[in-house]
């Protein structure tokens, strides 16, 4: 129990003093995860919606594959991104390994199928509701996808939130491709892993509480934003 209290005390102290290292690590965590989320959403939201409205030959296989990719092991993703961006890899020339960009790429690969799959499930129901109307209005495919994304935005915020939760809590892939370099690629999760390895459980717990607080904060902001209908007005 004393570890938890020490952790709470450490977290409280870190927050109260706005310890520069903690601020830097927290901001980097947010920067990496939010950038990955933005890129993943730009891919996954139209993709999931398009899969809901479009009928094509291998649609079921595509959806099943997407669902299966939700469980993609982050360590394997990290390994593959590492190989691709290592000096001898096809993208080695870009010199992105052990940079926040490589971490963002790994997170995008991990969370895109998750967001796309949740989006597809939500949009499938909305498409069933809107199908006849949008066909009757002779909408184009692009107009249908746009309409569904706009009208289903509250559900899509939940999908994005799930993606953010997975991204900010991810450690395996970003440890491999980021390298946990101080003042360069260290984020909250890799810092927690490092402090745990060093036996500094109090600091690790303190960082953990900060991580939970960040995730909760983003979740609450998302919840507030998703209230598109307020007091009977749209």
């Amino acid at each position: 129990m004393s570890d938890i209290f020490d952790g709470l005390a450490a977290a409280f102290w870190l927050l109260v003093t706005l310890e520069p290292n903690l601020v830097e690590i927290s901001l980097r965590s947010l920067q990496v995860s939010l950038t990955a989320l933005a890129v993943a959403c730009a891919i996954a939201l139209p993709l999931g919606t398009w899969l809901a409205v479009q009928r094509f030959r291998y649609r079921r296989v595509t959806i099943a594959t997407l669902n299966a990719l939700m469980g993609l092991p982050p360590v394997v993703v990290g390994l593959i991104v590492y190989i691709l961006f290592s000096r001898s890899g096809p993208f080695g020339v870009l010199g992105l390994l052990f940079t926040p960009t490589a971490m963002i790429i790994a997170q995008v690969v991990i969370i895109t199928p998750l967001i796309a799959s949740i989006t597809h499930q939500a949009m499938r129901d909305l498409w069933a509701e809107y199908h006849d109307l949008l066909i009757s209005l002779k909408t184009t495919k692009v107009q249908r996808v746009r309409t569904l994304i706009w009208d289903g935005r509250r559900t899509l915020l939940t999908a994005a939130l799930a993606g953010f939760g997975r991204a900010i809590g991810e450690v395996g892939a970003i440890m491999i491709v980021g390298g946990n370099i101080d003042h360069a690629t260290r984020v909250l999760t890799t810092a927690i892993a490092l402090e745990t390895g060093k036996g500094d459980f109090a600091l690790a717990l303190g960082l953990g509480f900060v991580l939970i607080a960040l995730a909760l904060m983003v979740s609450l902001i998302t919840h507030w934003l998703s209230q598109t209908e307020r007091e009977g007005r749209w």
Partner: protein
Amino acid sequence: MVSPVLPLKVRGVSVRRGARHLLGPIDLTIEGTGLTMVLGPNGSGKTTLLKVMHGLERPSEGKISYGLARAEAERRQAYVFQTPIVLRRSVQQNLAYPLELIGRPRDEIRRRAGEWAERIGLGGALSSPATRLSGGEKQKLALARALIRKPELLFLDEPCANLDGRSTRAIEEMLLEARAAGTRIVMATHDIAQARRLATDAILLINGAVHETGEAPGFFDAPVTSETKSFLKGDIIL
């Protein structure tokens, strides 16, 4: 003035879903002005016929043609469903949607949406979520959204089913106005009294086939077949 979309010609159209034969073969022509009422008992194929004519369903056999090329003709049509479909948006945004699709200027969209909201008695509810409206209000909104693009051909699938007298009257008044403004209307119903009030001509469907057609006074007052007589009397037709 007769719309260039017409005549709408239905030639040898049949619709099958798997082993089930839903409609046809049907041959009919919609032309001129007025309101054609498609009558028939439940399951007679009224909705399927309307959807096929509007292009929402493909016929298994036969052909639908318009006075204009298909794409242009479809752009000048609108359809109102039996259960109103409203977008998860405000009343104003629902009315604006068809105009946004065709890229009308924002000022015009706002003005026309406001005008139509006033006409259907929802002027004070422009910002309200359309999903919270009553059944009658939703149907009026759906009809206004269909009419806002001034369609030349309007299909309505039992728009007054499940509505009370006041809402039914409001819908009928809107339809009469649209008809007077030159919109050619094809409407399905099994409400004989409503058909008598609105129709200029009528089609009776039984078991997916056209049983009898005619101009309104003659069709209702002197039907030819015994089945039509029975249907108009309110007897059950199997």
